[in-house]
């Protein structure tokens, strides 16, 4: 085989491989939409999206409670994670001496690698009993437990992108502030953080996308009752959990309704991440 022939063939092959990721994205959209169609046709998009009742035995499939469950859990998780993640990012970018940074950064990165089910397990065994004692009722499986677990899981995402953005601020800004007599904290507060705000916004949005898609850990600590998250001490159910909990037993229109749940989740995450990526690109 001539090397020119190999060159031509491999050019085609890597081109095909390169397009696969795009095709997967398109196929996901097509297949999930296709499987959702029976439920969408029979029940109507409005009834599914804004229906507050999910009774598979009575063919009633409204996902509003789960949508609320996902949104409330995610927002609460962000509120818990934000101060910690931003503090951590400033610590890594500006404050920590190199030898401490070399401990903290790998630790934060390792948090990404820990399996979702391990977070769920630790949440079940440690967090839920504490919350049960605090609230005085129930098993402790609750929105609060889910939010705390989720906060730890999105911590690395928000921390690393925020640190990145803080480091991307040109050194002359910092030097300018120092030259004007600002303390290090004044420089961080009034110069670095405002200059990095787009990147930090992107970090929070991308963290939101990750949080809303988390599944197994949520199923393990949130209690999975398809009810409105009226209190943070009560159980709820997320969109992701709805799919995971019922997929094994679902058939027919019920299965299709679970695919519709997935479709809503897919569109929601694509929207959030598109905005996040846009913000990330414009951070400079």
């Amino acid at each position, binding site marked *: 085989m001539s*090397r*020119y022939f190999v*060159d031509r063939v*491999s*050019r085609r092959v*890597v*081109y095909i*491989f390169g*397009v*696969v*990721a*795009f095709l*997967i*994205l398109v196929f*996901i959209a097509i*297949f*999930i939409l296709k499987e959702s169609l029976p439920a969408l046709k029979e029940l109507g998009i409005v009834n599914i999206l804004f229906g507050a009742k999910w009774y598979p035995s009575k063919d009633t499939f409204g996902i509003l409670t789960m949508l609320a469950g996902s949104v409330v859990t995610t927002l609460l998780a962000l509120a818990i994670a934000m*101060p910690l993640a*931003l*503090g951590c990012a400033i*610590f890594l970018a500006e*404050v*920590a001496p190199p030898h401490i940074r070399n401990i*903290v950064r790998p*630790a934060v990165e390792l*948090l990404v*690698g*820990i*399996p*979702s*089910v*391990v977070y769920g*397990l*630790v949440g079940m*065994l*440690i967090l839920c009993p504490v919350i049960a004692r605090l609230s005085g009722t129930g098993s402790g499986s609750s929105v609060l437990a889910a939010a705390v677990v989720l906060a*730890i899981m999105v*911590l690395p995402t928000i921390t690393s992108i925020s640190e990145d953005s803080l480091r991307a601020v040109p050194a002359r800004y910092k030097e300018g502030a120092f030259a004007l007599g*600002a*303390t290090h*904290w004044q420089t961080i507060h009034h110069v670095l953080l405002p200059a990095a705000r787009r990147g930090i916004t992107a970090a929070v949005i*991308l963290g939101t996308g*990750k949080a809303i*898609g988390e*599944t*197994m850990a949520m*199923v*393990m600590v949130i209690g999975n009752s398809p009810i409105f998250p009226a209190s943070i001490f009560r159980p709820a159910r997320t969109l*992701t959990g709805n*799919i*995971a909990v019922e*997929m*094994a037993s679902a058939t027919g229109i019920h299965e299709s309704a*679970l695919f519709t749940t*997935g479709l809503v989740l*897919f569109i929601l*995450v*694509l929207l*959030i991440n598109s905005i996040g*990526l846009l913000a990330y690109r414009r951070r400079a």
Partner: protein
Amino acid sequence: MINLSPKFTQKLAWSSIWTAGVASVLILLFIIGYVLTKGLSAISPEFLFTAPEGGLSGEGGISSCIVATLWLILITMAILIPLGIGAAIYLAEYAPDNKFSRLIRYSVELLAGVPSIVFGLFGFAIFVLALHFNYSILAGALTLVCLLLPFLMRSAEEAMKAVPQYQREAALALGATKWQTVVHVILPAAMPGIITGITLCVGGVVAESACLYVTMGGSAAMPTSFLSGGRTLAVHVFYLAMETNALDKALATGAVLIILILILNFITRWLSQHFQAKMSGGI
């Protein structure tokens, strides 16, 4: 409003920032420490080498889960590695700077953010139902390939882009074809970064649960081929904790998972440091 001196606010801010930094390490140590101290004592050769009873019983060990996890790693990587590296070669070396390439790059980034359970639904619809692989290790592996592809592509592309331009020019000037340049110059130079990416993806297979929960069927029996169903260690933890309430066994399995993740993490770190030293040390 109270007027605080800059010196005082600096001290206040510093202590909060240090607290945040130290807290993140403590959280990690707490999770790892808790699972290891509670789980390690239940790990024995018997636990590792007997099969779980499955069903509503929490009895037995984890041998079939270990085998299913290994099968899954093997099949996923066999497909993912050529596909991911090939796609990265296209993006790093061949893709022209036009709208189409930007579309592909953008879809890689979007794909990386799609939730695991959505990949699970997709895998269920296409591999389990449409292609008739049923609940199987193969269906799980193909779903994981889709899930992990963007991560391997990104790390491999980054590694190739870091190869200095003059190395490409030198190879081309010696009369090598573009493909020869890729195979004999760029890939070897980018190998440390690519291997790091591969190790991270193996970690992803070990840690993943949601998309496998709906594509592999969760049978506790020993898998006999890649077409049998099964449950990985991570999925086994979920079943033990949620369906059988065998929390001690769940912790023991969790400890095995943590040890695997720590080993993979250590390998990644060692590789990147080893290669960095090798590449910058000689000169």
